[in-house]
Structures are given as structure tokens and as C-alpha cells.
């Protein structure tokens, strides 16, 4: 368990600064609710393609050596 904790701590130390930089580096312009119509369009929304992305990740997990990219865990099955 301590080895796992060390691994998590090491990975967090490596990746967290990059995430923090991105968070702080993004713009501060205020976009009001009535200006967000285009962002909810199916061709712009992240949610509209959530299931498609999860399905593709599941299929490519079985064909490539890496995983992730959707902010969620995939199933643990060993299928094709």
C-alpha cells in the first residue's frame, strides 16, 4: 500500500503543476449566461459526445497500451 501511495504522490507531483498552470493561465473574460447559447449546441458541447467518447475509449483500450482521456473510469472487462 505504501508503494501505491508513493506512486500516487510521484504522479501527482509530476502532473499537478501542469494542471495548475493551465487553470491559472486561462482568460478571465466574463461570459454571461445569455452569451452561452452556442456552447450548448450539440456540435460544441462536451456532454453531447460523452457516451460516444466512452465507447471509443473502451474499444481502443483493447487495441492500444494506454487508457484515459475522458475524466472517468472504464469498465474492467477483458473483452475483445
Amino acid at each position, binding site marked *: 500500500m505504501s*508503494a*501505491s501511495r508513493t*506512486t*500516487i504522490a510521484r*504522479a*501527482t507531483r*509530476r*502532473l*499537478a503543476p*501542469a*494542471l495548475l498552470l*493551465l*487553470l491559472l493561465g*486561462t*482568460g*478571465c*473574460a*466574463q*461570459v454571461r*449566461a445569455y*452569451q*452561452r447559447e*452556442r*456552447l450548448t*449546441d*450539440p*456540435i*460544441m458541447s*462536451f456532454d453531447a459526445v460523452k*457516451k*460516444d467518447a466512452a*465507447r*471509443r475509449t473502451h*474499444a*481502443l483500450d*483493447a*487495441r*492500444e*497500451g*494506454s*487508457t*484515459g*482521456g475522458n*475524466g*472517468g*473510469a472504464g*469498465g*474492467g*472487462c*477483458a*473483452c*475483445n
Partner: protein
Amino acid sequence: MVLDDQTVDCLIQLFNDSDHVVVRSAIGNYETTMAHDSHFQMHWNNEQVTVPGIKAPPGSSEAVDAITTASRPISGGDAYSDYVKTRNEFQGGVTHGPAELQYYLSTEPDYLAQQVAANWNGDVRDDQTNLALGTSYGWDSIDPAVDDDTRQGHATKKTWHGNAVATRILTPGTILRFGLELNLVEGLQHNPYRNVYAGGTNVPERHPDHRSRRDLFLKLNQALPNRSSLKFSYRFYNDDWGIDSHELGATLSQYVTHGLFASWDYRWYTQTAADFWRAEYLSVTGVDGYLTGDYRMARLASHLFGVTLDADLAAFDVRTPVLGSMGVKGSWERYFNSNNYSANFVTAQVTYRF
């Protein structure tokens, strides 16, 4: 209890690849809004997988790689016949305000996977940014079928996952998402049916029991004039087996007419090899006791092209109320990688809103 805004979608996906593996997936999703800011969603998938017979005698060096990542046993006289298996998948989840709980189950004759997940998200910085945190724990039970040339008994696999994702509105037409994910995996992680040619003979594949996997991803969606959009994505992945990977993606979506849009998709991927991967093993002990015949552990590059047509029939002037509540979608994706492997994904989906 009042159920509102119910949505049902049914989807058929057909997959076939250059190794003649065929998968038929019948998928259904149901979502509804309940009282007190709560939502319920359910997903099921019935999948039939056909893995072809091997092309060389069982146990021969030619047969070692005759089966790719699709799992199948070789026993008795059936090695040259197709092997067909069925997988059923169920997922249920409840969302209440910013919190979400999910349960996942996948069953197949030799594999049972279960998972519980919890997610939370909330808006910060004047509702310009959404922060999401998620975690899950999965436990798998593996009982390989009878196999003539490997001997793997009952095994387990446990997976812990954690993620943090931020989504930020940059302008009225630009939105950015980035996040990091961690996965810790303990237990059986190789194919119990696969042999590796090593030291002049065939020995069962063996991967390490522990794997620590992490990735960082970035997605940017940009609205363009004339009702179109361009989406970019990048992911960097790293694990303690020695695999580093980069993934780049781009999608161009364009409305053809009101309620109908087309998307063109491209994805490029590359990865380094695992530390214990070798094209040829000189000793039966492999590298530090590990051997693999899995091409996913090798250096690899791949491309994926896709096209999608998505129609919301409510936007058309249909006179039938049933059609007016429906959406239809079709897609085709072509995948190929540097191991002379290629595959097609064809998907057809119908959505109905109550």
C-alpha cells in the same frame, strides 16, 4: 414519483477487423429527471464476440500470435473453429445536485467485472469554470475456460481510479477542458490463453501484477462561422511498465441544414514499448520474469478516421408526433495501426424523447 424528460436510445454497433474478429453490440440507454433535482440513468449492452480459429497447430510458434487481443481458449479439437462468446454489460447511476453515484457490471463466461464510482462537480469563479472530481473502485473475477496449452486458475484484478477535471468558458464560442487521471491496477493483467515463444519453446504470457497509470488531457472546442465547430484534443499518458503515449485528435462539425449536422474526425496516436517487451525472448524467464506476446506492449502508432451524420427529426417539419420526438445518428470509423492491423466500426443509433 414524477418522471420527467425521459429519453431512450437504442444503438447497434458492428465491428470487424483484419484478424477476422467480429463484434455485434446492441446497446440501450435510458435517462429520466426525477423530483428534487435528481436524475436516473441506466445503460445496458449485449455483445456477441466471434473470434476466428487459429491458423496453425496449437502450441506451434506460428500459432503464438494467431490470436490478437481477443481472448479465447484453445481446447480439444475446436482450435480451428470460430469461438463465440456473449458479454452483457449493465450500468446504473443516480445524480443528485452536484453528486453522482454509479454501479457497473460486466459478465462473460470467463470474466466478471464490477465497479462502483462517485463523482462530484461544481461551478466556481463566477460560473466560468466547472470543477469535477471522480473516483471509482473496480473488482474483477477471472475464471479462464479449459485451455490445452496454458494453465491459469482463478484470478482477480482490482482497479482504483481517480480524476480531476476543469472545464472553463473562455469566450462565447470557446470552451476548454483539461484534467488528470490516475489508475492503480493490482492482479492478473495478461491474457490467460496466450503463449509466448521464448528460449526455443512456448511459455505462458506473464505481465507484472501491479500497474500504475496516469494521464493528462486537454480539449478545446471552438465555434466557427456558418454553424460549424472545430474540436482539438491532446492526451499524454505514462505508466510504470515503461509505456509513454501521445494522442492528438481533431473533429470538424458542420450543420448541413437545420437539425442535421456532419462531423469529420481524425485521431493520431503513438506509444513507446513496455520495458519487458521484446520481439524475441532468448530465455524462458523473459525480462525480469515477464514475457509478452501482446502487441499493445510494443512500440505502436495508429490513425483513426471517422464520419458521423446526426439528425434531430424535431427540427424538420414532420407531421407524425412519434417522428418529431426522435433523433437518428450513423457513423463509420476506420482504424489502422503500425502492426498491419485495421478495423471498422459502424454505428446506427435511434433516440426517442418522451
